[in-house]
């Protein structure tokens, strides 16, 4: 073979180099998400590590219900009450959101057709877009007096208020993920069932729901993650009192809200400041686990 022929196929001209350069640039873009996630963990750990190594008493941190970081003589850093606050609000929100968003997803995905369906989907998407600070404001100004009046209680900024607000907030998101999960069930499953004489609701309950089980679980998990990490709405609607709730009419304080309310008042590098970052690390790890689990659960169904 003529050796010059091989050289003709050597395409290393300017375009070739540009191509390689772009490939490197988009690769950097591709790994940016990984870099940022690691960066988040590194930087919040850097700010909080001093507290974890020197001041933190692990037992006190997780088991003490007293969060009194500004006490000059004996500051106490116990997040139990804050965890209880977050858990109670998120729990109530799920009780509100799960049945309704599953019901709505089934209606939108399996019953509604054509224009109605499109309209409902757009509406759900718009509801999901309402900013959390607006939800907090609604809790503060609309729900608060409403709860005081209806239940005849002295305070309306309670687990009940924040739970309902958070429920309304997460429901649209859970609805759209759940609807996606229903959509992922192949039509031939439905057709096969209908060919056997099953009615619509039999198809839904005996075929579609079991087949979409993992996707629906993923939707719920993402809802949990969202509720857990929500900040502004729970800051404004919970009443912000460090307290382990005994009823839905108690005021509580959430982990996220504590950071939002106190970070501005602390001196950089102080114990209190580092303790707030430690709560941040805790939140990061919990939501990481929730998201990872949700991803594995959803992916499990795709493989099967």
């Amino acid at each position, binding site marked *: 073979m003529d050796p010059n022929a091989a050289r003709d196929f050597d*395409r290393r001209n300017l375009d070739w180099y*540009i191509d390689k350069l*772009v*490939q490197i*640039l*988009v*690769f950097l*873009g*591709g790994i*940016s*998400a*990984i870099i*940022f*996630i690691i960066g*988040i963990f590194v*930087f*919040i750990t850097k*700010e909080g590590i001093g507290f974890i190594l020197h001041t933190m008493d692990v037992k006190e941190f997780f088991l003490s219900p007293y969060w009194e970081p500004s006490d000059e003589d004996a500051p106490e850093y116990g997040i139990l009450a804050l965890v209880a606050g977050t858990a109670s609000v998120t729990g109530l929100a799920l009780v509100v959101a799960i049945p309704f*968003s599953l*019901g*709505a997803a089934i*209606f939108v995905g399996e019953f509604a057709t054509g224009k109605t369906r499109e309209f*409902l989907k757009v509406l*759900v998407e*718009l*509801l999901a*877009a309402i*900013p*959390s*600070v*607006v939800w907090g*404001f*609604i809790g*503060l*100004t*609309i729900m608060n007096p409403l709860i005081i009046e209806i239940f005849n209680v002295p305070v309306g900024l309670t687990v009940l208020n924040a739970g309902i607000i958070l429920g*309304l907030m997460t429901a*649209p998101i859970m609805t759209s993920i759940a609807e996606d999960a229903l959509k992922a069930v192949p039509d031939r499953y439905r057709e096969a069932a209908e060919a056997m004489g099953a*009615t*619509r*609701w*039999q198809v*839904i309950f005996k075929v579609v729901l079991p087949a979409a089980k993992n996707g629906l679980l993923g939707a719920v998990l*993402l809802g949990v*993650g969202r509720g*857990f*990490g*929500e*900040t*502004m709405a729970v800051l*404004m609607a919970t009443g912000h009192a460090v307290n382990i709730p005994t009823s839905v009419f108690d005021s509580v304080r959430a982990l996220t809200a504590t950071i*939002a309310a106190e*970070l*501005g008042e602390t001196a950089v590098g102080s114990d209190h400041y580092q303790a707030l970052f430690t709560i*941040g690390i805790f*939140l*990061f790890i919990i*939501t990481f686990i929730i*998201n*990872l689990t949700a991803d594995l659960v959803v992916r499990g169904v795709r493989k099967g």
Partner: protein
Amino acid sequence: MFAETSLNARNKKVQGLFRMLFMLMTAMLILPVLIILVTLLVKGGSVLSIDFLFTAPTNGMTAGGIFPALLGTVWLVAVALLISVPIGIAAAIYLNEYAGENWFTRVINLAIINLAGVPSIVHALFGVGAFVIFFGFGTSILAASLTLAIMTLPVVIVATRESLRAVPMAFREACWNMGATRWQTIRRVVLPNAVSGILTGVILEVSRTTGETAPIMFTGAVFFTPFLPQGIFDQTMALSLHLFVVSTQVPGVPEDLPYGVALVLIAMVLIMNSISIAFRMYLRGKKKW
């Protein structure tokens, strides 16, 4: 034909019942929110005026308008977009055009999911630790916008990847067969066919960024400043934070004023979102392949 048996009739009835039940549940989900929106519209509408939009707050934020907050939000969103859109598009190009189906791609996807799932207040902590302190930007528009950009990056990535995926493989193959390099193909064939879909994602990101509060609280947005921002190293007011401030932090605010702020904020977010959705539907309608 077939006579309806009692079983058929019963099944039909049950089905009707379930349909009703699910419809009711959907309504229960949507109605309260609509009622709330109407309340906002009625109460906030009374304060809304051109003056309200274009004057500064006065009397310790108990009167006047929202102009500095509005302008601050525009600054924050614009700078955040400048940062996140190029990175997001690059990431989406990598994922859709270069990456194979392997563990590495899966790690990237997982990182994107987590970036979207990390609580906004943790993003704020990151912003403080990284941009305000470590990189020394101080509390500034730059630090706040960087925080916002990283937080909303998944929105751009996901939307762009979807629109790249919608470009048929045959388009690329035809181009490659003409001897074009990968980048030439992306630049001349893939991107032009995906640009409107990308735009949809960008508008969606504007909407998301506008409403965020927690990530900017400690990184660049302040409760009140008498100065309008002049550059990216200035602090600024922001609409979302302003709503928080006037409804919780300032005593003696007239009852209607926060409703006005909330109405402007929600209107901006929902209008942006609607434009994005309408655009997406229009594109789907006119798709040629």
